[in-house]
C-alpha cells in the first residue's frame, strides 16, 4: 500500500493508504485527525474542507495519494496551541454560528479561505461563497454574521 507524507498543521505525518483512499478518510482514519468531518458522498456538504497548499479543498474530492508531499491545514491547527480561538473561531462563538458543530470545521476552513481571498466581503459574497458548505442547524444567519464580524465589519453581537 502506498505511503503518503504530508505536513499537517506544521507537523510532518505519514500514513499508509489504498490507492482509492480519499484524503478525508486518510486524515480521519489513518492520522486520527477526526476534526475534519464527512457529511456526504457527493462532494456537496463541505464538512470536510481543509486547506491543501493554502487552497480550500473538499478533502473527500481528492485522493490521499494526490496530497503526498503537500502542506495541509485542518481545523485542529486553527487555534493557538494553548487553545485560544483564532479570530474566525471566536466570531463563530460570539455570533452563535454553530449548533451541533458538525458542519463547523468545514465552515471555519471555508471562512478562512474566503477572508484570505476577500478580506471585506459583502453579506451576499459570504452567502455565495458558502454555497458548498451545508449547515442544517443554524439557518446560516449566525455563520454569515460571524464571518462578517471576523472581517472587521460591524455586526451586533449575539452573546455576552
Amino acid at each position: 500500500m502506498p505511503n503518503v507524507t504530508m505536513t499537517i498543521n506544521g507537523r510532518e505525518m505519514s500514513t499508509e493508504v489504498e490507492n482509492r483512499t480519499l484524503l478525508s478518510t486518510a486524515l480521519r482514519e489513518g492520522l486520527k485527525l477526526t476534526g475534519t468531518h464527512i457529511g456526504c458522498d457527493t462532494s456537496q456538504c463541505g464538512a470536510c474542507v481543509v486547506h491543501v497548499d493554502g487552497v480550500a479543498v473538499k478533502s473527500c474530492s481528492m485522493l490521499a495519494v494526490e496530497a503526498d508531499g503537500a502542506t495541509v491545514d485542518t481545523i485542529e491547527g486553527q487555534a493557538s496551541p494553548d487553545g485560544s480561538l483564532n479570530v474566525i473561531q471566536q466570531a463563530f462563538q460570539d455570533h452563535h454560528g454553530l449548533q451541533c458543530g458538525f458542519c463547523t470545521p468545514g465552515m471555519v476552513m471555508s471562512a478562512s479561505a474566503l477572508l484570505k481571498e476577500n478580506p471585506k466581503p459583502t453579506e451576499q459574497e459570504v452567502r455565495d461563497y458558502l454555497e458548498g458548505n451545508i449547515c442544517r442547524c443554524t439557518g446560516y444567519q449566525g455563520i454569515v454574521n460571524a464571518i462578517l464580524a471576523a472581517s472587521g465589519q460591524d455586526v451586533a453581537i449575539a452573546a455576552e
Partner: protein
Amino acid sequence: MADGGIGAPTKRREDVRFLTGHGSYTDDYTPNHTTYCAFARSLVANGKINGIDTSAAEAMPGVVAVFTGDDFTEVGGNPAGWAINSRDGEPMKEPKRPVLAHGKVRHVGDAYAAVVAETLEQALDAVEAIEADIEELDAVIDMADALANSSNLVHDEIGTNQCFDWGWIEDNRAATDEAIKNAPHVTTLELVNNRLVPNAMEPRASIGEYNPGSGDYKLTTTSQNPHLTRLLISAFVMGIPENKLTVHAPDVGGGFGSKIYHYGEEALVLAAAKKLGRPVKWTSTRTEAFLTDAHGRDHVTKIELACEKDGTFIAFRTETMANVGAYLSNFSTATPTFLHGTLMAGNYTVPNVYVNVKAVFTNTAPVDAYRGAGRPEATFSLERVIDKCARELGMDPVAIRRKNFVQPDQYPFASAAGLEYDSGNYPALMDGLEKVADLSGFEARRKESEARGRLRGLGINSYIEACGIAPSNLVGVLGSRVGLYDAATVRVNATGSISVMVGAHSHGQGHETAFPQVVADLLGVDPMSVEIVHGDTSKIPFGMGTYGSRSLAVCGSAVYRATEKIITKATLIAAHMMDEAPDKVDFEDGIFSVAGTNKTVGFGDVALKAYIPHEFPIEEIEPGLEETAFYDPANFTYPSGAYACEVEVDPETGKVDICSMVAMDDFGTVVNPMIVTGQVQGGLAQGIGQALLEHGIYDENGQLLSGSLMDYAMPRADDLPNVVVDHSHATRCTHNPIGVKGCGEAGAIGSPPTVVNAVVDALQRGGHNVEHIDMPVSPARVWEAINR
C-alpha cells in the same frame, strides 16, 4: 439572580470543542481491534427474497462474518411506541420490523444482509459479492392506490395497506358534520404536505462492543435519547438486560427527529460484536441516510372550514392520508394522530373539530417525527384554509384570525380538539407582529416591487403547538407505551463544583450552557462551576431524551426540582452549622443566613461539610449532597406565535424570493435568548426549505429520485434570508417551575404556511386566480400556476 443565570445570552461553552476539531462524534471513536460493517441494501422497492448466497462474500479477504435475516429470526421486532385504535375500535396493524429483511424487502435501501470485515473497504467489496435472488414485485407507492388495492400489499400478513383509520374526536364527528352542513359558508382546500428527508449533517453511526469477560455490551450511537434506545433494545429487540447494556450517544451532529428512533443497524452491531468478540462499527453514507433515515411529513389532506358570513369559525373538518412508509418507526403512529389531530383547533375558539387520519403502508422509507412532527402538518392545513376563507369572504387575513383568537382571559382554555391550553396571548403576538413586520407599510413596498416587475405578497400565520412532551398519565390514556417524564441528578461535589446528570440529550440545542444557567440561578453560584453530563446511560439516572421541544420544559424542570431538593438539604446542614432551627434559615444568592443575626454560611462551606461530616448530626442528616428528581409534566406546554413573510415573485420565471420573515413567538420564560434565537432561525430554515425547496420524491417504482445532496434541495446560505426573531411577547407556562414552553420546533411549524400564504397573496394581487400551490413552491410550480 446570579450573573449568567436565567435570561442571560451566555456564549455556548460547547462551542470551543466544536470550533477546534475536538468534538467527539460517534464515528470519531474507533476502539482497538474494530471491525467494520457494511450493509447489502435492496435496490427494489418491493421484492420477494428467494435466496441469498453469501458464500462468495464470506471467502473474500478480510471478511469475518456475514449476516442475513435468517440470523435474526429469534430476536424481537423494533416496535411502535404508540398504540392507535381505529374508529371502529380495532387495534392498529403492527407488522414486524426485523433487524434485517426476511422473506421480503419493502423499500429501496431495506437491508437484507450485512458484512463485517477487517477494513471498511473489504466489507464494501464483500457486499458486492453477495448473490441475492430478489424477485421484484409491483411497488406500493401512491397512498390512495395503496388503500384501494388490497391485492398488492406491503405486508401480506396483515391483509391491508391501512395501518389504522383514526378519528379525533370520534364523538364530535356527527356534530361537526352537522355544523358544516348547515354553515353559511364553507371553504374547502386539498393539499399535500411534502415528504422531507431530515438530513442531519452527521450521518448515523453505531459501534457495538461486547466484553466476553463480564457479559457487558456497549453501544455508541448517534441518538437523541440513549435511554429510549436502551429500553427498546432491552425490552423488545434483543432482551439484553438494561444493567448489561450501556448506550452512549456522544456528540451528535443534529437530529431533528431522525435520531430519536432505534434502527436495525444498532441491533446488528451489538449482535455481531457478541458473536465476534470484537467491536463492530458502522457509519452511514449520505446515500444510506437518504434511503433509510426516517423521513418526515408526507400527508395528503382535505380540510374544510365552516364559518359565519362575518368570519366566525364554526367547524374544521380534516381528512388526511398519512404515509408511514414500509415499517412502523417508533413514533410513527403518534405523529399523524396525537401530535396532529389534537392541534387542529389552532389558536381559535372554534366549537367543532373533527379529524380523520388513515395511516398507509407504502414501499418507501419509514416516515416518522421530523422537526415539528404532526404540528407543522396541522398548522399548514389550518392556516392555508383560513387564508383561502378570508379571501373568499373578502376579509383581511389578520382580521379573520383576530376575530377567532382565544382571548387572554379565557385560560385555561379547553380547545375543541381536546387539549387544555394553559396560557398565551395571541392578540398581543399579532400586535407585536403588525409593528415589527410593519404591516401597514406593505402597500408601499408592494408598489415598489411592482415598479420592478415583481409581484409582492404578504403571508400571515398564527400557530400553536403542544410541546413539553408529555404528561405520562394523559399520553398513557391516548396509547403511548412509554412515560414521557424526564430525570436529573444534581451532584454538588465536596469543593463546590456541581455535576448535573440529565436525561435530555444535546445535539445542537446548547444544554451544556443553558441548564447550568437554571442551576446557577437557583443556587447563586457561577454557572461555570456547573457541568452537564448527558448522553451516557451508565452515568445519568434515566431520561426520555430530546425531541418535541421538551428538553428544558421537562428535563429542565427535573433539574430545577433536583436543585430545590439540594437547597432543602443544604439548608438543614447550614442550620446545623449555624446552630439554628432550619425554618429560621434563609437562602439567597448562595448565602445561608439567619434573619436578625449576623450568622451566615456560604453554599461552598455547606458542600464541604456535607462531604467532611465532622460534628455532623449523622442520625438526622445523611452525608453527601446529591439529589435526583423525576419530573412528569402536568400538561403539554403551548408555545404560540404570529409570523409574517413578504415575498417577491418573478412572473416571468416563477422564482420566489423571500424579502422578509418575522417570527413573533411566545416561548414563556427564555433562559438563554441567544440560543432561543438560534433555534428559531434553524427552524425557520427548515420550514422555508420545506416551503420552497425540499421534496423527497419517489417514482412509481419506489426509487427515491431526490436521493442525494445533488438532487434534494437542501437550503444553502444563498437560499435563505436574514430573519427577525422576537420572543418578547411571552406568557409564562403555568405548570412547570421555570415557566418555559419550548422553542425548537416553532420555526419549522410557523413558517411553511406563512411562505405559501405570501406566494398565493402575491399571485392574487398580481391578478392570477391561484388558490393554492403545493410545497415545495418551486419556480416550475409557480410558473405553471400563473400560466394555467
